[in-house]
């Protein structure tokens, strides 16, 4: 459990932890490193102008066939030149004539975040290189088994149980915790951004909306996260928020894994915000002090009291009592009361029966390489292509479930 959060040794101080450490003498982990010098972190790399560094990178990868084509990016399957059996996905960002301000923000965000994040449950970015006409190529981990959305929606062919849900949720929660530990907000967690690798490992992908935690005074934009998975504070246009925006989305994914359709759906932002109010409870000064100060807060016409455990037990009994507790902690309306990604991982549900399925035993139907191609070509915050979304646009009348 090298990635377990319990190994962090951060003192629980509310000020920023500023423990100093010396620069470690260890050699970096990169494979091409030849650092052997003991008390020095780095031996000198052979001097090269950056243009030749780029060509060298480019030659390491081979594109085989195109599996996705979009307005934003084209996706190819390829392999390492040095190891033809090791497959990769290459996301080639299209030169965008519409975006007039240079390299697009989505691209910059994605590259910036993925270059820093190395985790078994986060899609690996092996390299970035440019081809001659200034196209950016992102060399990504190969995820041939589709995405979690395919598995959730294929109710006829894919059957799974709580142990499987626990396994997927565990992988997702570790990925999200790791992002936050690196001060990165994902801001677009949803089932079709959760790809499945060949070995069944779940991979958080699409960092096109990701950003670093802002400094305390800095304002952030609120129109983030695909609508069904967006937390209430973003609907209310909060400009200062934290990692728990992602935790809300994780809660939505957990609910969707059980229900097999999105828990909170609306055709517009306002409708979806109202759905949160109806489904989870209406945000008020009582349950969320300060909420009425948020810019887009609308005084509710009818106040639905925050749902209590029996409501969730009815819908999600398969998760068990503590699973429901966990989900409810992710659906706290007030972001300050919502569980952090670390608290989520510390929840007792993970320790309880059933044990999470081993990744190799997880259901693996999915749409395969084409789904990966489809997922990777998208720009952050976009819903999947029409055809796929239509198939799944089901609604549920939560009003009828009340009582």
């Amino acid at each position: 459990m090298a990635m377990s959060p319990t190994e962090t040794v951060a003192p629980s101080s509310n000020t920023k932890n500023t423990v100093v450490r010396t620069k470690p003498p260890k050699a970096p982990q990169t494979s091409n490193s030849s650092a052997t010098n003991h008390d020095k972190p780095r031996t000198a790399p052979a001097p090269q102008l950056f243009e030749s560094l780029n060509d060298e990178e480019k030659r390491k990868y081979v594109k085989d066939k195109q599996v996705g084509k979009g307005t934003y990016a084209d996706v190819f399957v390829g392999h390492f030149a040095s190891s033809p059996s090791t497959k990769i996905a290459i996301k080639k960002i299209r030169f965008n004539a519409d975006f007039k301000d240079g390299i697009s923000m989505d691209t910059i965000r994605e590259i910036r975040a993925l270059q820093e994040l190395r985790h078994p449950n986060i899609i690996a970015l092996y390299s970035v290189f440019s081809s001659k006409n200034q196209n950016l190529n992102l060399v990504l981990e190969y995820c041939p088994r589709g995405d979690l959305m395919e598995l959730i929606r294929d109710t006829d062919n894919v059957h799974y149980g709580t142990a499987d849900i626990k396994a997927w949720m565990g992988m997702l929660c570790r990925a999200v915790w790791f992002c936050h530990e690196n001060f990165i907000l994902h801001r677009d967690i949803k089932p079709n951004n959760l790809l499945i690798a060949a070995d069944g490992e779940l991979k958080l992908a699409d960092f096109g909306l990701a950003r670093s935690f802002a400094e305390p005074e800095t304002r952030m934009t609120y129109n983030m996260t695909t609508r069904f998975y967006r937390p209430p504070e973003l609907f209310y246009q909060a400009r200062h928020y934290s990692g728990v925006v992602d935790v809300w989305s994780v809660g939505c994914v957990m609910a969707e894994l059980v229900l097999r359709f999105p828990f909170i759906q609306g055709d517009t932002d306002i409708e979806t915000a109202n759905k949160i109010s109806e489904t989870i409870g209406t945000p008020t000064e009582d349950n969320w002090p300060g909420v009425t100060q948020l810019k887009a807060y609308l005084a509710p016409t009818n106040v639905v009291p925050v749902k209590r455990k029996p409501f969730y037990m009815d819908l999600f009994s398969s998760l068990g009592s503590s699973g429901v507790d966990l989900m409810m902690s992710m659906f706290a309306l007030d972001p300050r009361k919502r569980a952090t990604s670390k608290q989520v991982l510390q929840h007792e549900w993970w320790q309880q029966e059933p044990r999470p399925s081993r990744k190799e035993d997880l259901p693996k139907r999915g749409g395969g390489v084409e789904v990966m191609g489809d997922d990777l070509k998208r720009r952050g915050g976009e819903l999947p292509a029409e055809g796929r979304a239509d198939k799944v646009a089901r609604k549920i009348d939560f009003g009828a479930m009340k009582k």
Partner: protein
Amino acid sequence: MTEDEVYRASTQYRLWSFTPHALASLRAGTHALAAEKVTAARRSKRDVVSRPSAEGNGVDSNGAEEGRDASGGVANAADEVECLTLAEAQQLVDFYCSKAIELCNHLKWPAAVKATALQYLRRFYLSASPLTYPPSTIIKPTIFLANKTENHNLSLDEYAAKAKATRDQILAPEFIVSQGLRFTFDVRHPLRGLPGAYMELLSLADGTAEVLEGVGKTAEELQEELMALPHDTKKANGASAAEKAADVPSLKRRIHTAYIAANKALETTALLTDVYFLYTPSQIMFAALLLADTPLTTFYLTTKLPPASPLLPRIRAAIESCARILRAGPHIVSQAEASRLKAKLERCRDQDKLDLVGLDRALKRDGREEDVVTESVAKRRKLEREMSAREGEELFGPEIGRRA
């Protein structure tokens, strides 16, 4: 997972941290490669120019000068002298870095954007030379890139107007800069940790600090020690230098003064020296604090580790050597000297990269055309790939049965 492990996974550590020796040799190597290219290009051009038929194309004084060199027959030595030296090239980069700070200050941008822009510039010039990409053409695009990566999001038009540049001048080098940064945009700043240190010091002053395990003292004891700290004798603070901080308010004033001074160092000196390449953000932050108030910072450090920790001397040594660099400060040449260097650079620039805007336009035009013929290009590439794959196989002999 410790903070160290998180930091070691960062690109700042993996790609942009060096020993002083490695840093120097990287710069020297880059300069040598760029200078060699310029010299070689000049030699071949001179060969052409010396033939009268090609003379009409000679651009400006350059052409004439080279013509003279060529007629002189042995011009090698003259060429070498003309090129900016490694030291001069670095002086020019440093000079423009200070100009970049001025521009960011003028724009009233957050310190994080400025700090990132500066670090981009310094990183870029590790694998690129001013001979190829003069800093005057690179700073504005780089600052704009930092504006995007730090989510500051000023639009290009607004920026171009404020920075007094055209859109093309800002966008054309963007890709070059990103490539030079090896597409790593994240920079970890000591500025980020400083407010945390400030808050911790304040709570130490209040006697409410959460004490780390192993330090072996209570918050109250630490508060008392803090009160009794002498002032920095070297600092010319007049009468107050001899006094001790007698009460909590004056102690807090002292901490605040140190914080402001450290913050200033991190926003200026730290950005203009090599400390980011040589030390971790927390080491740099502590070094800036150490310069601002040595007794205070030395004491603060003891609240972070058990007194007997073998790490303590090593950490101190790292912080002190970083502080020495900050204390020495950057050596920014005068405007007059910079003008001389610029004039010299104009004579020895890489002639292939004179017009970045034009080059960029040509690239993008090609890009569009290529998009149109994507299929044929793809087909051709596929054939080439298959060909090379076949050749690869043939290297080891044909596979049995495959040939039929």
